C-alpha cells in the first residue's frame, strides 16, 4: 500500500512541470509502470484520482502503460518475457537471467488543455 505516496510524488512532479512550462489545467498524466515494480496499477490510478482533487483542485486521471517483465539470458543472449516469475531462459533453460525491463515507474507526459481554447 505505498501507492498513495507514489501518487503524491507524481502529482508533485505534475505541479512542477505545470509551473515550469506555464501550462493550464492538466486533466491527464501518462505513466509507464513495470509489472515487477511492486506497484499495483488500479490502486495507483485510484490514489492519483483522489489526490488530484486535493493537490490540483480538479479531477485528473492517470493512463498507465504496463511494461512486461523481460529477461536476457546470460548464456544464449535470448531476450524473453518472464512468465509467472520463472527466471529461466525458455530457449536454453539457463537460470543466468538478467532483468531488462519490468521495474519502471516513469512519468511519460502530461496532457494539458491548450491555452487558446480556454476562455
Amino acid at each position, binding site marked *: 500500500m505505498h501507492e498513495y505516496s507514489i501518487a503524491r510524488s507524481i502529482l508533485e512532479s505534475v505541479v512542477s512541470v505545470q509551473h515550469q512550462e506555464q501550462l493550464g489545467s492538466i486533466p491527464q498524466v501518462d505513466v509507464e509502470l513495470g509489472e515487477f515494480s511492486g*506497484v499495483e496499477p488500479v490502486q495507483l490510478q485510484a490514489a492519483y484520482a483522489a489526490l488530484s482533487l486535493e493537490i490540483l483542485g480538479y479531477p485528473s486521471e492517470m493512463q498507465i502503460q504496463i511494461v512486461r517483465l523481460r529477461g536476457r539470458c546470460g548464456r544464449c543472449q535470448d531476450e524473453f518475457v518472464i512468465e509467472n516469475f520463472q527466471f529461466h531462459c525458455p530457449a536454453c533453460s539457463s537460470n543466468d537471467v538478467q532483468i531488462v525491463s519490468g521495474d519502471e515507474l516513469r512519468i511519460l507526459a502530461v496532457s494539458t488543455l491548450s491555452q487558446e481554447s480556454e476562455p
Partner: protein
Amino acid sequence: MNTVVPVNRDLQAERRAAAAVFRSELTRRGIFCVNLISSPGAGKTSLLQATARVWPEPEKLAVLVGDIATDRDAERLAPFLSVRQLTTGGACHLDLKLVERGFAALNLDGVEYLFVENIGNLVCPASHDLGEHLRVVVLSVTEGDDKPGKYPKAFRTSQACVISKIDLLPYVPFDIQAAAADARSVQPEMTMLPLSATTGGGIAEWCDYLRRQRATVLTEQILDISQQP
C-alpha cells in the same frame, strides 16, 4: 483541445540514485548495511539478539528497527546493541528518508555493521532500496517451504535466505531442500542459511557469512567509488 507535453521523468532511477548516494556514504565510513526482510514473526529480532550474543565485539553492531507501532523491538535489542526504533505509524515498509533520519540519530562510533530490520511484510519492502549492501530474507519453518515462489520479488532481490526456527523442524512439515529449490528458481545465486536463534545452531555460519560479505562487498564498492571520475 488537449496538448501533450513530454515529461520523461524516471522516478525509479531517482530512487535508485538516492539509495546509491547513501550506500556510498556507508561504504566510505566502513559500515556494512544489511536490510532484513520477512513476514511478521519470522524471527528477525531474535536473529539479531542471537547475533549480538555471540559477536566478539557487539559494540560494532547497530540496528535500525522498523515497526508500525511500539518500541518493543528496540527494548528487546537495547541490552545488546546500539539501536534506534523507526515507527512508521501505519506504512507497511521503511523508506530511504526514514532510514537516513534514523542513521543520523545513531551513535556510529566504531560501528562496522548496520542492520535495518524492516517492517514485517514480504511485499512492499522488496520494492525499496534502503541503501543496503546486502538484503537478507528471513523465512521461518512455520511459514511453509512454498513461500519463495509466492513472494518472488522479496526473494529475487535478496542475496541470502535465512531459514529460521529450525529447532521446530520435527513438528512442522517444512522441507529445507524444497524451500531452497523454490528460492533458487527466482534467485539462482541465493545463499541459504538455516539456523535457530533459540538453540544457536547455524548462528556461527551466519556470522561468518556476514564477515565474508562485508569484506568482499565493501572492497568492491570502494574500488567502484575510487574509479568514478
